[in-house]
C-alpha cells in the first residue's frame, strides 16, 4: 500500500523586493502600480511514492526544499502545482517543542500539544501516564516547563508525538532525541511503527543516521530530485558533490 503519492509537485513563493504589507503601502501601490514580485521556485516537478512500512530519507543542502516538501505533504502549505495523495493519519514533527507553554505544567502541556495533534481530551487522559513514562519524566510532573532542560522538553515532545499513533510520520531533522539511551529507545519505537505499517519521511543532514535507518533516500537540490535509490549509493553521490 502506498502511504504517500507525490506527482509532479512544484512550489513557488512570491518574493517582493520590499515589504508591502501595510495599509498605506497597499493604497500607494494602487496608484503607482503593483510592486514587482519575483517568483522563487522552491520545488520543481517532484515525483515519488512512499510505501507502508518504509522509511524514506531526504537529503540536500540548506534551502533545497526539504522542509517545504514536508509542509506540503502535511497540508501546512498549499499546493502550487502537481498533486499529493496521502493515506492515513499524518503527524509532522517540524521543530520539537514548538507550541509548548513555558509557564505551564507538564500535564497542561501534554493536553495542549496532544490537542494540537488532534487527540481528544479522553484519548490524552488515557495515554497520559504512558506519555510521561516514555519520556521518563515521572519525577518532574509538578515542575513548570521553563524549569526543564532542553533535552527534557524534547523527550516530552517526542513522547507526545509517538503517542499520536501516526500512519505517516514526517520528521524534519529529528529522528532520535535526548541522551544516548533515549535516542535508542525512540529509534526503536519508530521502527516498531514502521513494522506495523506506518511510513516515515525523514529529512536530515546527519548522513550517518540516514544511512542507518532509511530504506531509500532522495537527494534534492534546488527543488529537483538529483538522485533516488539505496542510501549508500545516494549518500556517496551526494558526498562527491558536497
Amino acid at each position, binding site marked *: 500500500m502506498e502511504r504517500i503519492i507525490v506527482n509532479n509537485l512544484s512550489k513557488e*513563493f512570491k518574493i517582493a523586493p520590499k*515589504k508591502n*504589507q*501595510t*495599509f*498605506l503601502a*497597499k493604497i500607494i501601490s494602487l496608484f503607482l502600480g503593483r510592486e514587482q514580485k519575483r517568483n522563487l521556485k522552491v520545488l520543481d516537478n517532484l515525483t515519488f511514492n512512499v510505501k507502508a512500512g518504509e522509511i524514506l530519507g531526504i537529503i540536500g543542502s540548506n534551502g533545497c526544499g526539504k522542509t517545504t516538501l514536508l*509542509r506540503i505533504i*502535511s*497540508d*501546512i*502549505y*498549499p499546493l502550487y502545482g502537481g498533486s499529493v495523495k496521502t493515506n492515513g493519519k*499524518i503527524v*509532522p514533527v*517540524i*521543530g520539537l517543542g*514548538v*507550541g509548548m*507553554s513555558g*509557564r*505551564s505544567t507538564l500535564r*497542561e502541556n501534554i*493536553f*495542549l500539544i496532544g*490537542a*494540537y*495533534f*488532534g487527540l*481528544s*481530551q479522553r484519548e490524552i487522559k488515557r495515554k497520559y501516564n504512558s506519555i510521561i513514562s516514555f519520556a521518563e519524566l515521572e519525577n518532574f510532573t509538578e515542575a513548570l516547563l521553563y524549569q526543564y532542560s532542553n533535552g527534557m522538553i524534547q523527550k516530552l515532545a517526542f513522547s507526545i508525538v509517538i503517542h499520536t499513533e501516526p500512519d505517516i510520520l514526517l520528521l524534519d531533522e529529528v529522528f532520535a532525541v535526548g541522551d544516548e539511551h533515549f535516542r535508542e529507545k525512540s529509534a526503536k519505537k519508530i521502527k516498531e511503527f514502521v513494522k506495523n505499517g506506518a511510513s516515515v519521511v525523514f529529512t536530515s543532514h546527519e548522513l550517518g543516521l540516514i544511512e542507518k535507518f532509511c530504506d531509500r533516500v532522495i537527494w534534492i537540490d534546488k527543488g529537483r530530485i538529483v538522485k533516488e535509490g539505496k542510501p549508500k549509493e545516494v549518500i556517496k553521490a551526494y558526498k562527491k558533490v558536497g
Partner: protein
Amino acid sequence: MANIIHKTKSAFSLGLTMARIGFKLQNEDSWFGPLWYLLSPVLTFFLMLGIFQDRLGNSIPNYPAYLLLGIILFSYFQKIADSSVTSIRGSAGIIKSINFPKESLILSNLFSILISHILEIIILILFFIFFGVEIKMLIFYPTILLFLSIFAYGAGLILASVAVYFVDLGIVWGFLVRLIWLATPIFYSIEGQTRLGIINLFNPMYYFISVARDIIIYAKVPELWLIFGMIGYSLLFFVTGLFIFNKLKLRFAELI
C-alpha cells in the same frame, strides 16, 4: 458532513484547552488575577458616571445601569476583537509546524474572555442591586450574550485573517474601535438625533446594547427591528467571517 462535525469538535476541544491554559497562565492559577480585568470597566464606569450623569444622564432613566450595561457589553466585544488581531501572527511557530484547525485560536480568545466576563456579570448584578434595578430580567442576558459571541467570533475571524495580509491592522483597528465606541450610544442616548440614528443602523453593537437595555433594565420587549438587527448582524458576521477565514487560511503559514 461527518468530516465537518469532526473538525468543528476538534476546533472546539483545542480552543477550550488553549483557553483554559491561557487563563491559568494569565492569572498564575489564582482567582485574584481576573479581578484586575474588572478594574478597567469599573473605573471607566465611575469616571463616565461622574462626568456625564448630570449632563447626559438626567434624561435617561436608570442612567448608572444604562451606562454599566453598555460598557460591559462593548468591552466584551472589544476584548475578543483586539485579541483576534494578533492571534494568527502570534502563533506563527505552531502554525508552521502542525496542521491544526486555526479557528481554535479565535475560539480560545472567545472562551477565555467569556470566563472573565462571568466576573463582570457578577459585578453587574451587585451594581443593579445597589442602584435598585430589578435583576430578574438578567435571565435573558445569556441569550443576548450568545448572539453577541457569535457576532464577535465572526468579527474576530475577519480581523485575524486580514491581519495576516496587513501587518499594521492592529493600529488601524485601534483607531476604528475607538470610533465605533464613540458612535455607539454607551454613555449618551441617540433619541432625537436623526444623523446618529442613521449611522447606528450600520453599527451592530447598537442593536446588542439597545436590546439588552430594553429587556434587562426597562423590562420591555424591544422593537422587532432591533431584535432582527441583532440576530441578522450576528449571523451575517458569522457567515462572512467563516467564509473569509476559510479562503485566506490556506496561505497563513506562508505569510507569517
